[in-house]
């Protein structure tokens, strides 16, 4: 055999390289859109909208009162979702709480017999001002971004701080 230039690829090496390149091309061309699709929700922002809750002039002092507000679920669906709003009036100050527990997001309820908000899942307790007084929840009860025009309450479907 004639003296071969070691820099030149043999037939076998060429085939090997070609297989790997073909595999890599398919993987990349398939992988990028799929991975991008999977992580795309991290970069989509849910638009927050305002909705009217109702007239809160009649809410008694120190007695959390529940209102239901309908918000669009968003994305592609036309369905709506009901959100619960607890309006607490302490002297002249209004707190607008959601019923989302800061532990595991279970539905919190006001217990009149306790004088506290109770989360039935794991026994979390919040007082009337939303502060933690018992159980595992790590943060106070979340409040909705809101505005009050006269005696009408409007809220956005997002919290003042993320849960």
């Amino acid at each position, binding site marked *: 055999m004639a003296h071969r230039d070691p820099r030149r690829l043999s037939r076998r090496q060429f085939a090997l390289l070609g297989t790997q390149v073909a595999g890599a091309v398919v993987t990349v061309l398939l992988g990028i859109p799929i991975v991008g699709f999977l992580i795309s929700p*991290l970069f989509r922002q849910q638009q927050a909208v305002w909705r009217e809750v109702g007239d809160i002039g009649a809410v008694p002092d120190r007695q959390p009162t529940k209102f239901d*507000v309908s918000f669009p679920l968003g*994305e592609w669906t036309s369905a709506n979702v*009901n959100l*619960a709003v607890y309006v607490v009036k302490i002297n002249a100050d209004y707190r607008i709480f959601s019923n989302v527990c800061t*532990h595991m997001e279970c539905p919190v309820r006001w217990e009149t017999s306790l004088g506290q908000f109770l989360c039935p*899942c*794991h026994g979390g307790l919040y007082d009337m001002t939303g502060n933690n007084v018992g159980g595992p*929840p790590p943060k106070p009860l979340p409040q909705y971004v809101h505005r009050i025009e006269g005696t009408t309450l409007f809220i956005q479907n997002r919290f003042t701080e993320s849960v």
Partner: protein
Amino acid sequence: MGRISAAYNWFDERTAIRSLIRKGLYEAVPVRGAWFYTLGSATLVLILLQLITGIFLTLLYVPSVSEAWASLHYLAQHDAFGSIVRAIHLWSAYILLFVIGLHMVRTFFSGSYKRPRELNWVTGVGLFVLVLAMAITGAFLPWDQAAYWTAVVVTNIPVYTPFIGSFLRALWRGADTIGPTTLSRTFGIHVWLIPAILFPLIGAHLALLRKHGEFGSYVNYRGAYRSREGVDVPPAPKQRPIEPPYPAVPTDELWAAPLETEDFYPHQTFKDGVVSAGLVILVFILAVAIGAPLEAIADPSTTSYTPVPEWFFLPLDELLVLVPQQLIPLVLVLPTVGVLLLLALPFIDRDPERNPFERPAVMVPGAFAVLFVVLLTLLGSGRLFNL
């Protein structure tokens, strides 16, 4: 008869099916301890039951937030047979989780993860995690109150991971809160993604089992294994010569082949059949008697509903109740460490000793781990009855 065997020969010439059947049916299995081995086939039968009932359920169920509950409600109201299919799917899932737990405890107890069967165990742990994932993702799909709040709590658990917690949560939910994307993603994961990994893994698990044979448990050798005291145990008979094709790799003489074997078909298949049929009958009875409940449609604004976890989720949920706020990441750490320890088990415990009483360093922590899970389930079970 001539024509049938001629047809069979024609077929065999073109597909080599005779040798395949022979290999499959006439494997040597040990005589002693064979009833314990039925748990594996019972698991397989129940998984196949899930596959079949699940496929037929997709002929009606709609994975949309506004239609999911409605489609299942329609099923419950107007379709008696369809309701039974759904109920079988539910009860078979519950019993599958129970049987897979028993199967794991049995293989752990008998040291069946030791050389050369380490990968069998590793694939098995993978299967366990995937089956659990199927159960959890399946629980979201009805989108009734129970499903909705399960989805909320389960998808919220990753948020306690340091640094990437909220990203992980948004990845699954499709946003920061539960929405249409959550249901669509979970449906795709439950029906396609996990089964696409699960079934090849089952194939690998079974292939490995066949490669190394169904023995190696110390139960096969009772009477031959001399205890340390040598009391009340007859002397070991001459160890039988090891026959091909076992062992696939050189292994300890004592555990290589049992004293007595018989054919897989019909002896083991009989035992497998009895146990599997019994379990399927049990599933059927539960499905018809109790059925699959469907609660009210999901309502995030509820202030009267008390979310109750699925029974297999109780240990984790009880941890969530007990663990104080500063130690919540423990709820993530404990299951992760548990699964990692399970995966690493064959590589930590390399002692060839199989008798469970002679290896306390593995048995005792394992027994306590099982006991603690059972204990947590028991302690949290009061909430199942809505007390």
